[in-house]
């Protein structure tokens, strides 16, 4: 079994979260962008509200550009990808050069998209590389704990994002099942009472999205730490 320091387990977890954030926000962005083509210009305001990010954009064109590519904007997809990269680059020994390469390729694809006159097409390559990254995580990382921490971060982020976007309960339940499967394979310490509460919350018909998000954010707050 691999030995992993607290610092590296944290980086594995955030690698999973940021890679998922890039993937899912890109997917959602593409759907919103498509709607905005038909002049529903207020779409991006709703998007920002649901994502709980400040609406600093002046128009749909400004949103399309800066939400995707603004290096100075901590909420941009670009910044999230760079955070994934920052975590991946220090994990070469745990995840391997082949796995790390797909995050690097996603960064190159993002930089190409930034200067492209057809950015949506190029952004597809970013998503493709993230998908390939997840595939190779499964295929080439032998250590179950390393693999599981990355995937646990990914699952947690997905429930968080889906909840923010008020997705249907069936979608969130499906992700919760995957989350439950993964969490016990990580070796991470978490608040069992909160996990039970989360499982209860996703089963009720009218989802309390805000509480789900809050419980996810505080899942690592242990009772004995208080």
């Amino acid at each position, binding site marked *: 079994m691999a030995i*992993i320091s*607290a610092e*590296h*387990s944290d980086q594995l977890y955030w690698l999973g979260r940021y890679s998922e954030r890039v993937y899912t926000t890109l997917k959602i962005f593409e759907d919103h962008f498509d709607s905005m083509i038909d002049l529903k210009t207020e779409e991006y305001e709703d998007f920002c509200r649901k994502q709980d990010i400040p609406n600093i954009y002046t128009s749909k064109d400004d949103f399309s550009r800066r939400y995707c590519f603004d290096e100075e904007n901590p909420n941009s997809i670009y910044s999230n990808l760079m955070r994934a990269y920052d975590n991946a680059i220090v994990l070469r020994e745990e995840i391997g050069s082949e796995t790390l390469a797909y995050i*690097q390729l996603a960064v190159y694809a993002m930089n190409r998209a930034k200067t492209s006159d057809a950015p949506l097409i190029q952004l597809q390559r970013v998503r493709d590389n993230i998908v390939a990254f997840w595939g190779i995580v499964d295929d080439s990382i032998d250590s179950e704990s390393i693999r599981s921490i990355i995937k646990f971060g990914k699952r947690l982020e997905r429930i968080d994002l889906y909840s923010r976007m008020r997705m249907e309960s069936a979608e969130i339940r499906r992700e919760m099942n995957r989350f439950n499967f993964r969490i016990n394979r990580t070796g991470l310490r978490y608040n069992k009472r909160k996990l039970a509460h989360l499982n209860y919350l996703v089963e009720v018909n009218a989802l309390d999205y805000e509480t789900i998000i809050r419980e996810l954010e505080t899942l690592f707050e242990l009772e004995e730490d208080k």
Partner: protein
Amino acid sequence: METERLFGYSDTVNELLARYGVKFGIYKNNVFKEQLFPFDMIPRVIEKQEFAFLEKGLKQRVLALNEFIKDIYGDKKIVRDGIVPEEFIYAGSGYLAQCEGVMPPKGIYSHISGIDLVQGKDKQWYILEDNLRIPSGASYPMIARELCRRSTPITFEKNAIEDNRNYAKLLRRTMDHVNTGGHTVILSPGRYNAAYFEHSYLAEKTGAHLVTGSELVVENDHLYFIDYSGKKEPVGAVYRRISDEYLDPMNFNEESVIGIPHIYDIYRKGNVALLNAPGNGVADDKGIYYFVPKMIQYYLGEEAVLQNAPTYLPYYKEDMDYVLEHFDSLVLKDVAEAGGYGIVFGNKLTREEKEHFLALLKEQPRRFIAQEVIDFLDIDIYENGEVTPRKADLRAFVLMADEPMVWKSGLTRFSRNPDSFIVNSSQGGGFKDTWVMAE
């Protein structure tokens, strides 16, 4: 030798190097940037017999340097016998008083040595510099070879070339040889270090754990790695890629936040191996370089196989006279500088600059060495579809386990500027693979 076949794959291999993040870090205007290290497909080729000669000389040199460090922090016979003046020991920045009387595990100080050589137009090899602190660069030809083999396997089928991908095995053997019991780790200052790619790649390839100082702790006279569940795992060998002064704030620079408090105390007790040993800088000072052939004679009773570049020490009056007389044909090096900095070509200075420099030289003669400018044998690079000559050096790696081992390859760095002798990556240089022929 079939190297032409490689030309067509230049872009492919450089793209693959980018894919795997083969970069080095550089600070420009206090901003950290990662840069790709340009790779040239035309290898430096060293014939089997020629490399056997280099191997003999390199082993001899590293053995003598190791004896020198042992002596300096021990009996100091070489100083007492008047071979090396004490000013060159104690005034140098590499000497550490804290290392006096400390013997590292198995008496090895320089586990990984990077020896820089150049080849003159007369085909004679000259040693330019010994790097015994934390020499870097082996990872670049390792990964480049991997990608070249993938790009054009037939080239490697048709040429009998020593496989250089065994560097990780040699390094692991070196680390295991001195391990005092426990895990082996590579200690890095972190991702904003210029050589971070190398730290992480060598960790991956050797199976050592890549750590920063905050992940290790000294307790009960032993070193431990703390895992994420809080369990402490013993560590027996640390291949440290941070400088002596930052290694332990309790023993060296107290402002260091990247070191491990008290690691030097337990090293002194023999409870952990540090590769390379602290204090090695005493032997790779540019001023000490002058004395290496004398050391070989003194410790091993042998003539040096490999020659130094003709060097003068302005510290000695007759050498100062020579330097003043032949200033325009010499290159002067500040012994405290590295990385291609602090190098002055006499003929490149304006009259004012020369006057200023000569005043400095007379005031601080110990600070500089002077060398004849070696007429490098240019080697070809492939650039913009053409083959063109450039200056290049070779960093050879010698690893010391139960015996000295010379890696059958090396990092060949070249200047991308046709008028420059400076090959350092930090100054825009590129690199090549080094093929040592097996037959």
